[in-house]
């Protein structure tokens, strides 16, 4: 038992040592690039990228919106066909169709979320009072906002259509997709095997977040060091990390309470 403990400490020291070496290598690479950019006067502050994206703000958002509509409509049509086939399919065929349904639904949801995140990212480049109030940028920015809002509304309604389609195929699934309590209502209508799948996926997500957040935090700190991006990004990532950790531990403690697992 004692040997096992020593091995764990050794392993932890190795991991920390490796992380320091990787950090040192990355730091020297970034430092070198920064130094060279300062000496050559090419700049390393992201101004070029910001200007470039600002000049194509509305078309870029339009492309994101168009791609998202094409992909999501194609996915919805596929889903509809799969759901229709399920009504008359035999058990074995149903297994395959339900897997297809899960896969296509997951793809559609990912496209929906990615398009929303990309839209936010792109709009943020022009989201500055200094930029909007100078040189007649207000109108192009407003046009970009219209495309941005249209993309969000479309995605919101696509998700509602998707949920309604699933509910039509599986009437036991409950929940109003427009409600804020939709996730709870949906989970409530799932049976034990479906809940296990959801819980396993949720735990995997928690582990992924816990592994990714330190990397993101380091990334935001490096960005602040070289690009002077401000500490807000670091604060936000730290807050997400704390929130994830506190929510998990709070939930574990709560479930340990008497009858907690029955709720």
């Amino acid at each position, binding site marked *: 038992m004692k040997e096992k403990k020593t091995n764990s400490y050794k392993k932890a020291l190795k991991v920390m040592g490796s992380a320091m070496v990787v950090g040192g290598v990355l730091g020297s690479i970034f430092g070198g690039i920064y130094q060279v950019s300062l000496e050559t006067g090419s700049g390393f502050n992201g101004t070029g990228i910001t200007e470039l994206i600002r000049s194509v703000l509305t078309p870029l958002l339009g492309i994101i919106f168009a791609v998202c509509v094409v992909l999501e409509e194609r996915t919805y049509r596929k889903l509809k066909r799969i759901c229709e086939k399920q009504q008359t399919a*035999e*058990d074995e065929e*149903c*297994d395959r169709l*339900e897997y297809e349904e899960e896969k296509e639904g997951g793809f559609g949801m990912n496209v929906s979320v990615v398009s929303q995140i990309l839209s936010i990212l792109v709009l943020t480049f022009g989201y500055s009072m200094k930029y909007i109030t100078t040189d007649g940028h207000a109108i192009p920015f407003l046009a970009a906002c219209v495309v941005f809002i249209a993309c969000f509304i479309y995605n919101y309604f696509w998700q509602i259509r998707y949920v309604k389609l699933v509910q039509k195929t*599986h009437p*036991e699934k409950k929940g109003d997709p427009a409600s804020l309590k939709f996730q709870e209502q949906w989970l409530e209508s799932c*049976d*034990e*095997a*479906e809940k*296990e799948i959801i819980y396993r996926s949720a735990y995997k997500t928690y582990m992924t977040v816990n592994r990714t957040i330190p990397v993101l935090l380091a990334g935001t700190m490096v960005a602040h060091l070289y690009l002077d991006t401000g500490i807000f990004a670091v604060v936000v990532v730290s807050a997400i990390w704390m929130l994830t950790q506190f929510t998990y531990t709070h939930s574990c403690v709560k479930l340990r309470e008497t009858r907690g697992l029955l709720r």
Partner: protein
Amino acid sequence: MPLFNQLKEYRSRLGINQTELGKLAGVSRQTISLIERGDYSPSVALALKLAKICRVQVEDIFQYEEEQHEGKENEQL
């Protein structure tokens, strides 16, 4: 957990499909399919419910078979 089952055989004897058995047991068709394939071990409540629907004892449908190394460990104890 090495839990084996004959749910598919008993369901066939009843002459119903997975959807119908799921409805009777209050679970989805997917859950019945997962149990039949051995990909999911049901809760005690669901196992009892399924046994009741098939009008047999729960042990007739579900069998727990110890894995070889587990068996050896128990023998040593």
